[in-house]
């Protein structure tokens, strides 16, 4: 390895490309402390006014509450629906498990713009449009495939020996699941919960089709704000969002190891 050093020009190119990749996220931090009325960089004065403006923006705050509640409900439901499904497909080996698995993960293959439109048209006639229930179903369509994937891999990697030992010692099937399988799946369950939460909290396109004037999520509110005016308000929200994501990722990293969770 020693004699295969990356040359200096190549290193500079890589550094510049990394800067390009990270520039938009990094730029948001200084802009959030801008004292200007409009979006500009570098700002001529600095202040906390846009954080204060955010705290006083009832629309953004209620969108944030909706997003948080929605993401929590979707996370709990993703686990409640995903764990039994993964168990049936991986452990019980239902007839045609590969087909079921492919069908249940298929929504990931479709663009969200097509899925969003398709769900909008159905929900419009069933009265689910602009309702919390409608948003939950819409989000589950995209979080469940991720949940099933991660849970199925985590379940498939478990040694059968422990479960077999428990049942040969007389434990009933449900007891085996509750006392042996689920505890052993804990890392997979945590990873699924984090993934479902982040996917739901960040979802924009499908939500944009399904949200109503009175019920909207934070990313959709941000989208409409950016669309209509250019001020540093979005920067202060973005900073808080990035910090929230960072906190979640750090917690996961400490408990499970980030690379093990997100990069296989």
């Amino acid at each position, binding site marked *: 390895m020693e004699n295969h050093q990356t040359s200096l020009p190549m290193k500079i190119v890589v550094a510049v490309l990394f800067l390009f990749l990270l520039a938009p996220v990094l730029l948001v931090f200084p802009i959030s402390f801008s004292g200007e009325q409009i979006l*500009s*960089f570098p700002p001529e004065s600095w202040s906390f006014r846009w954080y204060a403006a955010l705290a006083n923006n009832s629309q953004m705050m209620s969108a944030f509450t909706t997003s948080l509640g929605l993401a929590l409900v979707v996370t709990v439901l993703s686990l409640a629906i995903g764990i039994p499904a993964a168990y049936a497909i991986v452990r019980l080996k239902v007839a045609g498990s590969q087909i079921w698995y492919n069908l249940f993960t298929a*929504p990931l293959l479709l663009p969200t713009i097509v899925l969003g439109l398709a769900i909008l048209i159905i929900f419009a006639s069933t009265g689910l449009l602009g309702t919390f229930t409608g948003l939950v179903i819409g989000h589950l369509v995209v979080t469940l495939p991720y949940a099933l994937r991660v849970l199925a891999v985590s379940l498939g990697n478990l040694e059968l020996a422990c479960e077999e030992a428990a049942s040969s010692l007389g434990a009933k099937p449900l007891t085996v699941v509750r006392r042996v399988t689920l505890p052993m799946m804990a890392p997979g369950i945590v990873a699924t919960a984090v993934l479902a939460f982040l996917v739901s909290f960040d979802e924009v396109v499908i939500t944009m089709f399904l949200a109503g004037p009175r019920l909207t999520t934070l990313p959709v509110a941000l989208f409409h704000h950016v*669309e209509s005016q250019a001020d540093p308000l979005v920067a202060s929200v973005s900073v808080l969002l*990035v910090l929230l994501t960072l906190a979640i990722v750090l917690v996961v990293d400490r408990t499970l190891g980030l690379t093990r969770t997100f990069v296989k």
Partner: protein
Amino acid sequence: MTAGTATFLEPAKRRGTGNVAVALLLPIALVNAVGFIWPILNLAGLSIREALPGGGIGENFTAANWSGLLGDGFYIDLIVNSLVVSLTITLLTLLVSYPIALYLHRATGAWKSFLTVLVISPLLTSAVVRTYGWIALLSDTGPVVKAMTALGIPAPRLMFNTTGVVIGLTEILMPYMILALMAGFGRLDPRVEEAASTLGARPFAVFRRVVLPLTAPGIALGCLLCFVLAVSSFITPKLMGGGRVFLLATEIYDQAIVTLNWPLAATLSVLVLVIFGAALVLYSRAMRLLEQG
């Protein structure tokens, strides 16, 4: 995808106690049916229904949506424009991602993990936030235009046109391309490159004759992924195009939400899926050619 699933489906255990399994699968099947199968079938059906004025949908089956779409100069331009813009973005993304992926492939230890986290971290940031960052960078009051003006270079318009959309989407798709490239770089062994240069090949020849062919599968996978994501991207073109860049995804949204012509929006959606299918066919052709050498 199928390669990954085979591993955990293999250790076949006891045959399913039928009723229990059905009960366990029922909730996910319900969500899948209500939120995926029914809507998608309905959407496909809508593309052959007539649109009535005022947002209504006719009872009769018709090919009018399709013939209207393919006979209208505006839509032909829209489709061609979408394809050209997506291909441009794909190629640019490949160009700016390849050096990073190659560098990451050769890096080791904690440095590699750190850089990998840096590559993944934008994926965990909302597309709206990243697009907003690009608007701040490229707008007339942003650092790029200011710096160019200070240097006396007449700054071109970077926002609310195709240029802005291309720059923004290229950056937004970079993590996907880098991860796909790295996944396909498995066969690239530094010792092979060393052997080539020891035998007298110049750096560029090593790259063209050794590195490039060995990394071709990763390139094909990354390009497929980015093209498909670019064709269906909506947030960035909508925000950075400023209503002046017309692409398939933004037109689907406008037809569905603004014009309320659902049959036309459905037809455009099916067209996007057809483009996806075509891209997949091209990809598998390319992979077969690569395997044959």
